[in-house]
């Protein structure tokens, strides 16, 4: 029984982890059709923000929850103004440009902080004991944060005027423009928000995974697989794909081993996209957000 509960929490964490690293990408890709290959580096920059801030005496919670999204969000807006906005509708060009951006970020961070920064920030919060098993309290915290983030996203899209306009722009940019909405502004805000969410995720993951200039490469493939498997709807898609892929990965990894666990995640994604080429939300939850 202890094992079941503690394993269930572990798998839930695996799902939350996928959702966390993918959400920012989903916002940018789902709403703007921009393939941001520098997504992994935005996560990395969030992590470095936390490391630099805590090394300079900032409280770790403030660094993770406030500074990381703020810094990466600002970087996101700058990138959108200087780079992305010239390339809307040119998918291949955006792909190349953001790939270049990703290499630039890795190079800059490596020359600033060295190839392996000593990140001695330990995960805050203690240990949760479930019978004979123990789990990290911080991982439980991440599950809660991910759930709150999804809820906040839902509320923002559904209940605020900005959310309404953003959804309108997403469905038909020309019509929104004709109705007086400044679509470039919406795009800028959306890209900035996507970057901020990504920065938050990177900051939150820094204490458990450590930070390296090249850590983005570890995340980027999984984030893309999750977003593509999720389909058009940003929140429902990301959440449902994370539940499915994270669940498959967690259960198979526990039963066999991590190698087969990773393989199972990829196989699940391939089968899913064969059966539902438009992702989960192309077939189910079509009214979701």
């Amino acid at each position, binding site marked *: 029984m202890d*094992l079941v509960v*503690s*394993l269930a929490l*572990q798998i839930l*964490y*695996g799902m939350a*982890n996928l959702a966390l690293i993918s959400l920012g990408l989903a916002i940018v890709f789902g709403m703007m059709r921009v393939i941001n290959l520098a997504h992994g580096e935005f996560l990395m920059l969030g992590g470095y923000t936390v490391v630099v801030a805590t090394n300079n005496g900032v409280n770790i919670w403030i660094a993770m929850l406030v500074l990381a999204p703020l810094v990466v969000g600002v970087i996101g807006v700058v990138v959108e103004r200087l780079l992305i906005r010239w390339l809307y509708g040119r998918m291949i060009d955006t792909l190349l440009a953001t790939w270049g951006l990703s290499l630039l970020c890795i190079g800059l961070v*490596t020359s600033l902080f*060295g*190839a*392996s920064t*000593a*990140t*001695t*920030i*330990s*995960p805050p919060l*203690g*240990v949760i*004991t479930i019978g*004979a*098993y*123990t*789990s*990290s309290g*911080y*991982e439980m915290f991440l599950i809660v944060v991910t759930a709150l983030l999804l809820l906040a996203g839902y509320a923002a899209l559904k209940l605020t005027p900005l959310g309404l306009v953003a959804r309108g722009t997403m469905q038909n940019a020309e019509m929104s423009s004709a109705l007086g909405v400044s679509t470039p502004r919406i795009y800028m805000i959306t890209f900035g928000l996507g970057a901020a969410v990504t920065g938050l995720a990177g900051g939150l993951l820094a*204490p*458990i*995974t*450590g930070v*390296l200039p*090249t*850590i983005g*490469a*570890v995340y980027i493939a999984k984030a893309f697989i999750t977003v593509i498997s999720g389909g058009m709807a940003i929140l429902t898609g990301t959440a449902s794909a994370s539940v499915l892929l994270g669940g498959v990965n*967690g259960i198979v*990894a*526990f039963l066999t*081993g*991590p*190698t087969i*666990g*990773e393989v199972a995640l990829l196989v699940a994604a391939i089968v899913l996209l064969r059966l539902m080429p438009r992702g989960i939300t192309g077939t189910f939850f079509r009214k979701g957000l």
Partner: protein
Amino acid sequence: MKLNRRHFIATASAAALASPAIIGRALAADGIKFVSILDQSNGLDIYGKPMVDTTRMAVDEINAAGGLLGRPIDLKVYDPQSSIQLYTQFATQAAAGDRADVVHAGITSASREAIRPTFSRFQVLYFYNVLYEGGVCDINNFCTGSTPAQTVEKLVPYTMNKWGKKVYIIAADYNYGQITAQWVQKYVRDNGGDPVATEFFPLDVTNFGPTIKKIQQARPDMVMSALVGGAHVSFYRQYAAAGMNASIPIASTTFGVGNEHKLISAEEGNGMICAYSYFEEIDNAANKAFVKRFRDRLGADAPALNELAARAYEGAYIWAEAVKQAGTAERMAVIEALRSGVHYDGPSGRVQIEPRTNHANQNVYLAELKDQSFQILETYENQPPTDTLLVCDLVKDPSQSTFKFENGLKAAGIDI
């Protein structure tokens, strides 16, 4: 003559392009060519960067002392960026393009096996200065790092006596991890213990949650880790975050050689036990002087020193000793000198080439991690590479160029 812009640019760029070639040729006329191929970026940089630092230091020291045989050493360093493809490319470049006199290269066993045949084919002397799983039997290749019979054979009984007989093995998923896991299984069984489970991880895995649950379920007395690279450092963090480091201790065959003990906090790492042929904390005059020279050279940026960094330095010096003894940098003469028992008394103590295997007899130290530094508990002097000696005899048959453990220990006739 009228100096217009186009003419000026043409002349200036021709001169700029030509000058390095002229300088290069002037140096090449009498320099001995030493090529180093080590990962300085991407996942394996935690190993490669300190190794390059110490290699440069060794070459600069030798040059400052008048070079070798009155000739300077020309050092050329390539960064294969943790990519096997770039390794083979640079190996060919070093052998065929640079016509190197010696190449010191490779960190993972996968990279070594990718480039070793190139150096055999081009007949370029090759040094591999990294601790590994043993079993290379190649007249052209000198493996100066420690092997499992030197380190793991000491580490397993020591930690089993201290912690208990049920051992859970986790290792990186490529030839080093696979074969080292078999050595650990063998030594655990030899000492009357039980290797309860063995798990392998691709180098980019960062979520170790399911494995930590499995370890909790299996309730071993200790965990033996042969994890490799930057991403795997997260295992130690997550293990500590789940409170496991307090209940089930970890021993490792790799932890610390990438300075991982500086990457995680003191509380996360305290109590781990490792065995290598070098620790920065070794207490003797030669090592203290070595550490001081290294820190003076690099200042505040100096990374911690470990077996890989120290052996890259000692490997360069062993080769230099052999060149001096041979009186030439020519390959066969240097190989013969090396195999005649050349030794170097470096920071780790005496390192001497063992002629049947082209490996090294060396001191081994066993240490416990406390507050991000290793406290040395045991010293084993002049240990021979008995694992490779089981399968390799280059004195009897010098024509060999194989990796005997390619298909695992059982295929090589070793019971595990």
